[in-house]
């Protein structure tokens, strides 16, 4: 075969691969939307589940919201502070290198391992029980390295002249960071935090081991209440409810979860586009 016609065939094969990798997202979205929209109603969104076949998912929605908000409350400030240290202060020595190495190790940790750790350390050792608090802290361990990475990138892309100008005006290093560097890096940091939030919303294994079984009928009343979440509810109903009503509820919950997830990640991408455009100017 001559090289030119071979080239044409190869390009077509490439396009098939591209189509295959592109088709996944719309197929899943349409599948969930088509099957899930039928059951969505005010009642489904505001009542509590009974057994596998009845009721709604209000406690699960609120459980997910509580878990992720608390997780962000722990994870985001810590992650941003770490990133400031790594980007602005860290001297290039052994200590910093090992801090960086451990951050990467944590980022690569399978979520079930983090769940096991949360189960042993938080639930049993610190006696937090299977609870909102244990779940949120474990989730924040998972979210932390992602926040650090994204925030560090964002801080590093702030032009050096900004810092120089501020320092030249007599500002201290910390004043420069707070008043100049952080505001300039904010959209990038926000993107990182939101992508982390998106991951935490959908995380199942960690909350399974540390927060609750999923069918909880009450919105958590305190930090030590067991907490249901949408992903756990979907898992339970998808694998253990063998009735049409049960599976339909799993579709409905998947649709709600996907909407929450897409809301968060689309705003993350928009924050970044805004940021990139501003950098470009």
């Amino acid at each position, binding site marked *: 075969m001559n*090289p*030119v016609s071979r*080239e044409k065939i*190869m*390009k077509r*094969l*490439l396009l*098939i*691969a*591209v189509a*295959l*990798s*592109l088709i*996944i*997202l719309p197929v*899943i979205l349409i*599948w969930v939307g088509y099957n899930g929209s039928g059951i969505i109603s005010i009642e489904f969104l505001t009542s509590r589940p009974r057994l596998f076949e009845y009721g709604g998912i209000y406690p699960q929605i609120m459980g997910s919201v509580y878990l992720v908000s608390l997780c962000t409350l722990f994870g985001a400030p810590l992650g941003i*502070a770490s990133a400031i*240290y790594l980007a602005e*202060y860290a001297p290039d020595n052994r200590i910093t290198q*090992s*801090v960086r190495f*451990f*951050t*990467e*190790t944590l980022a*690569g*940790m*399978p979520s*079930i*391992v*983090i769940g*096991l*750790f949360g*189960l*042993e350390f938080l639930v049993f*050792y610190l006696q937090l029980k299977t609870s909102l608090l244990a779940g949120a802290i474990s989730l924040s*361990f998972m979210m*932390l*390295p992602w926040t650090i990475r994204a925030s560090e990138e964002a801080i590093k892309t702030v032009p050096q002249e900004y810092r120089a100008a501020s320092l030249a005006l007599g500002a201290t*290093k*910390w004043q420069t960071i707070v008043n100049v560097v952080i505001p300039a890096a904010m959209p990038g940091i926000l993107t990182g935090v939101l992508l982390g939030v998106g991951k935490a919303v*959908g*995380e*199942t*294994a960690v909350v399974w*081991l540390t927060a609750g*079984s999923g069918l909880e009928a009450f919105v958590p009343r305190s930090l030590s209440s067991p907490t249901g979440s949408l*992903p756990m509810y*979907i*898992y339970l109903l*998808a*694998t253990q409810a063998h009735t049409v009503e049960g599976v339909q509820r*799993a579709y409905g919950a998947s649709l709600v*979860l*996907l909407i929450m*997830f*897409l809301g968060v*990640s689309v705003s993350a*991408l928009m924050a970044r586009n805004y940021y990139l455009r501003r950098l470009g100017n």
Partner: protein
Amino acid sequence: MMKLESLIEKALFLSASFSALIVFLITFFLIREGVPALSLNFLTGLEWRPGQEFFGTLPTIIGTLWVVIGAVFIALLIGVPTAIYLSEFAPFWVRNIIKSSVEVIVGIPSVVIGFFGLMILVPFIRNTIGGRGESILAGWIVLAIMILPNLISLTEDSLRAVPKSYREASLALGATQWQTITKVIVPAASSGIRAAIVLGVGRAIGETMAVLMVIGNPETPWIPTSILDMTRTLTSTIAIEFSYAEWGSPHQHALFAIGVVLFLLVTALNFVATFVIRRNKN
């Protein structure tokens, strides 16, 4: 003033060390609970019957390898050509759309992908190919979906890092674009692609929910002989059994020992990938 500044620096350093502290704690607690159950028999035993205190994980380890290798292979078949298209052919706006959509897929809750696999793939396999449907093959497909996005974006990054002059030199010698890609660009980017594969394997080994929902998880796992066999993975065993395992029992220690194996495998793979990437940069 100076005192405050140095206090702040110390506080920031403490926050940055927190990740290291967590990794230490994870290592310590996993080892404390898991190592008592680790033995040669644990790794080579063929029988997993927690009720009778048989804790052999060999079938589970082999099941995991089957699932992971197949999934990575599928993801490569689709992901590398996609990355080539993105870096070499796609117009700017197409590339932007694809990259964003790929980034969204990365975060799609794995339980939703597992649910999709359970409702669509499993019945499809059962009706068209045979078996129970819940199978290694179904695991391949959902896991490939999970690792594809990262593989695409890492591969694309390393393809784009190949200097433009390489392409120009090859084209100037009369090579077609395709010849340039296969003979020049992909070889030049190969270490980046290798790192992407290693990271993909690590992620695939650690993935829990999506795989768990489609591979059947037989009560007593066996060494799979066909891709239509049901199987178990390391992660699915922990997830399914932790709530039945009495705290402090040998069963619980065995589950933590699986955690130790997972931890070591994944950390080693990440270590290799970082090493490959760093060597690549120098």
